[in-house]
């Protein structure tokens, strides 16, 4: 050192001498910094922030500020308590606050937003070592925690531009895109969380970040591309899927978070593909309309494996990954994805309601209880929604299974007074609806609204729907309406009138029936004279005649119909085939069974006849048709006995 002894001062890795600084190369640095990167992210988020204020009002700003301030405060306090250096100047807490706010509905109570900040900053980030050390995305994890803990508050979305009179509305994902146009979807004019609705703003911000080289294009492109592809495969309106449910927010701003995504470009692509795939699987097979949050969290867990499997070969060096490094992560990846998918699909299928056949004892008992009298089932065919109609002396009860939220059926019973005024609405099974959101609709406050009403009811006008459970509420209202119609017999062309004991001509079939006696008909049938005969006939055969030339034999048979007896005249050829079937008297509600379509089926045949096998019953008049068929068989029996 040429004997020069200069006073020196050590400062970390740098020695500062009296005059000159001596430090290791390189001696220059780029002008980039963590803070600048975070500022760029905030700039990228500002279009969405502005959009959220326009769409949801100034409260959006309040929620965002709450999240930001609480995030910063929590980070400061946490670092102080942990005796670490203060890091709030790098603005990462601000970014986390804004991202968290974007995942909340504008109606969220501020104290819940603060809890979200706590989870994101303290639990997910600081307890793992601070920035760059966390493996899970802070804002996403906080959203999931809040969704599970405060599901009611977290799903209380409002329509944009509602202002003070916020009208609750579901997000398009839960209503199946029926009430949102594509333009509305793109500009964000629909219900949803603060920052996830306005697609244009999110895309603008994302492109800005890509131009500024803050994020790489690979993850967003892979994410969106995979989601689009699966939407096409599942035939689930790809464009709508893309623009809804926070997919763009997730793809551009969450999945690109540095510390929770892979390092190499290939790794980022795989990460994005995985996120898109899991998102669409959850949306398609599961009951949650939201898959983005869970997808990103699952992929976060796999990042170390992805990094290992996509490590690059250094220039002039050895390969960094061996077969073990690729096989193990791939197998792990596949196993995890399969397990998740199986769990989601399995849960969905187990809770799916099977459509019921004939009414169960449980339903009958419940109906009896509701009507306060024994019930009997009224046979008939109904539409998909109505399972069956029961009647009693106090009125009718209808079992219906309307579709509620996301395709799930709700089992319910509606009891009516004799004049079709609703006595009671009872929900038997609502388990297919979302716990905490749809299921609470089964409450006296809601079902009690129907009592005393009649006719077709409209949601909003006649009956108030439950906030945040529009689909479930509407499903139940639909069910009540279908029950009313079935009870009154106005359903699917089925005209079997089960509302009164007496034959009601006004509700009966279009054809008219004229009662007649055998003497009226016989001359027409047995033209050249006839004579009465007797024999060992079945009890139902009340009288018999034969024609003068002994070629035709007629029998008057009394069989049971639905409402009473049917008296019919069955005429048989000498060779045993049926010549004619004429109904003389009946008290059924529909006279259709007396006409050609049924009666003509017997002509020329020898029998015996069985409804459903060689005889087609008249739709809606099965019992009547069966009664007539029985009469023909009995007549044949009687004829056979003559021959003996």
């Amino acid at each position, binding site marked *: *050192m*040429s*004997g*020069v002894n*200069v006073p020196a001062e050590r400062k*970390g*890795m*740098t020695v500062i*001498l009296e*005059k*000159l*600084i*001596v*430090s*290791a*190369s*390189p*001696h*220059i*640095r*780029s002008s*980039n*910094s*963590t803070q*600048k*990167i975070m500022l760029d992210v905030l700039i990228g988020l500002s279009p969405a922030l502005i959009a959220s204020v326009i769409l949801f009002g100034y409260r959006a700003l309040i929620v965002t500020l709450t999240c930001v301030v609480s995030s910063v405060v929590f980070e400061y306090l946490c670092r102080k308590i942990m005796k670490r250096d203060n*890091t709030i100047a*790098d603005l*990462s807490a601000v970014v986390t606050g804004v991202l968290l706010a974007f995942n909340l509905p504008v109606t969220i109570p501020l104290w819940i937003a603060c809890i979200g900040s706590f989870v994101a900053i303290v639990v997910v980030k600081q307890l793992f070592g*601070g*920035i*760059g*050390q966390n493996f899970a995305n802070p804002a996403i994890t906080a959203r999931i925690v809040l969704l599970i803990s405060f599901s009611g508050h977290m799903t209380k979305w409002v329509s944009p531009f509602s202002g003070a009179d916020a009208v609750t509305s579901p997000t398009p994902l839960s209503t199946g895109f029926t009430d949102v146009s594509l333009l509305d979807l793109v500009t964000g004019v629909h219900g949803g969380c603060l920052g996830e609705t306005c697609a244009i703003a999110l895309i603008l911000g994302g492109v800005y970040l890509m131009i500024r080289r803050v994020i790489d294009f690979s993850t967003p492109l892979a994410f969106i591309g995979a989601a689009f592809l699966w939407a096409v495969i599942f035939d689930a309106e790809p464009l709508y899927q893309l623009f809804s449910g926070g997919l763009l927010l997730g793809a551009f701003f969450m999945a690109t978070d*540095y*510390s929770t995504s892979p*390092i*190499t470009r290939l790794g980022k692509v795989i990460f994005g593909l995985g996120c898109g795939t899991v998102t669409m699987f959850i949306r398609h097979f599961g009951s949650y309309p939201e898959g983005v949050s869970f997808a990103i969290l699952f992929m976060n867990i796999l990042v170390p494996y992805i990094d290992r499997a996509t*490590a*690059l*070969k*250094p*220039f*002039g*060096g*050895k390969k*960094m990954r061996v077969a073990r490094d690729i096989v193990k992560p791939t197998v792990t990846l596949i196993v995890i994805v399969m397990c998740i998918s199986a769990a989601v699909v399995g849960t969905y299928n187990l809770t799916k309601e099977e459509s019921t056949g004939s009414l169960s004892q449980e339903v009958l008992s419940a109906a009896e209880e509701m009507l306060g009298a024994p019930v009997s089932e009224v046979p008939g065919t109904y539409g998909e929604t109505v399972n069956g109609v029961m009647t009693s002396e106090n009125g009718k009860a209808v079992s219906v299974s309307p579709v509620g939220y996301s395709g799930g059926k709700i089992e319910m019973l509606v009891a009516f007074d004799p004049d079709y005024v609703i006595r009671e609405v009872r929900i038997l099974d609502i388990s297919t609806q979302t716990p905490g959101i749809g299921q609470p609709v089964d409450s006296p406050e809601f079902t009690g609204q129907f009592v005393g009403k009649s006719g077709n009811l409209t949601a909003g006008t006649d009956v108030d729907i439950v906030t945040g459970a529009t689909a479930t509420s509407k499903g139940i209202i639909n069910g009540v309406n279908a029950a009313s119609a079935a009870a009154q017999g106005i359903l699917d062309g089925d005209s079997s009138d089960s509302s009164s004991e007496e034959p009601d001509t006004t509700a009966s079939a279009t054809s008219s029936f004229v009662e007649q006696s055998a003497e009226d008909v016989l001359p027409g049938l047995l033209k050249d004279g006839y004579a009465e005969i007797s024999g060992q006939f079945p009890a139902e055969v009340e009288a018999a005649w034969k024609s003068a030339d002994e070629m035709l034999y007629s029998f008057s048979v009394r069989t049971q119909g639905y409402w009473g007896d049917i008296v019919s005249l069955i005429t048989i050829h000498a060779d045993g085939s049926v010549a004619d079937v004429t109904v003389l008297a009946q008290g059924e509600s529909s006279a259709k069974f007396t006409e050609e379509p049924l009666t003509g089926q017997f002509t020329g045949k020898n029998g015996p006849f069985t409804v459903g096998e060689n005889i087609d019953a008249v739709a809606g008049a099965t019992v009547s048709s069966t009664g007539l068929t029985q009469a023909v068989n009995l007549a044949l029996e009687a004829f056979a006995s003559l021959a003996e």
Partner: protein
Amino acid sequence: MAIVKGKRSLPGVRLAHRKNTQGFQTQAMPVPDTVKIPMCQHMGAVCQPLVKPGDTVYVGQKIGEVDHPRCVPIHSSVSGTVTALEDYTTYSGVVCKAVVIQTDQQQTPDPSVAPPVLTDKASFIRAVYESGMVGLGGAGFPTHLKLNFQEDLHVDALIINGAECEPYITADHREFLEHPEDIVEGIQKVLHYLGIAKAYIGIETNKPDAIRLMQERTASLPDIQIIPLCSVYPQGAEKVLIYAATGRVIEAGTIPVQAGVIVMNVCTVSQLNRYFRTGMPLISRRVTVDGDCIGQPKNAEVLIGSSIQDVVDFCGGFRQEPKKVLMGGPMMGVAVYDLHTPIIKNNNAILCFSEEAARIPQETACIRCGKCSQVCPVGIMPRALEKAYDAQNLDELERLQVNLCLNCGCCSYICPAKRNLAQKNQLAKMLLRANTKR
């Protein structure tokens, strides 16, 4: 002569070039009062002084040598009297002697100075040895060793490194503009005596006039090709340059000659030719003097052994008080603590920075952005290396192949958290070396 565009480029960073002195003709520095010539100026063996205090020395006289295969002789750059043999420690920590000479301002050449006789490869190598030449690009590798490759190695490409990728430095650039004939002749001699088929001159595209000039000068020469290089640091790094010029990959643990390539700095080959012409060994060289503290930034022809202070005085002195003085460029240069440090053979720049220019922001937490891996020319992962080093995990350091590190500094440069990644890489290499020696 076809121009091959250097399309193959390894990753790196785009730096502000700051080539403030590229338009200035080189000026010869006046002879200082004293010079101090260290006996170790290269990556070779430490020489022993051949003179003692009181001896008279002349310009070009051999004053240091040692009987060792990796020795390069050291010659006096001035005429005068030896006043002392001081102890000296180089900035890389090598302890040696330094010959201090009081100059007589005469610059009388030594009588032994005469152009060498070149007949064959052996005589050629011998001549290169006697010239005292080392790599003038900054590394200082003994040139005669580099050129004296084994017979069984088939070398078919000579690459002339004219990249000069560091900011500020324009020494190589001026060499192209001021001595194109020496460059071309020198190349031709090397090709001839070593039996190498082709030469490639790599020049970064930020020196269009140099590219144009060299293209003209080599238009009629089929065995010399000009290769424009993209101006991404560190195109001048040996492995990077070879890949850009020829596409060949130098595997870890091997040297370029095993891939059939030899790389020489343009100043080295040019000075070599001057030696062949005049017989005067390496006693002076061009140094770029720049930085916001220098009064008159310029390229100066500096006598070996002149002190930094002497050079600065020649360049208009200090405009403001310097806080950091670098020998070399801002990316790989060495910070000196004493302005009396002498200029040696492989110094190509003196940069003097004020406090603001020298300030490095404080290190903050890694945000795992991955930029360090993205810019690394050899594709290793500085962030992972840092973690492994902090944990003193030798296996992990080996697995991450830290020995591939070029020490180019791109990782530290680009890091938004201002982490000292390149430094940690160096420490990691040393740790590995120390532990594998056992």
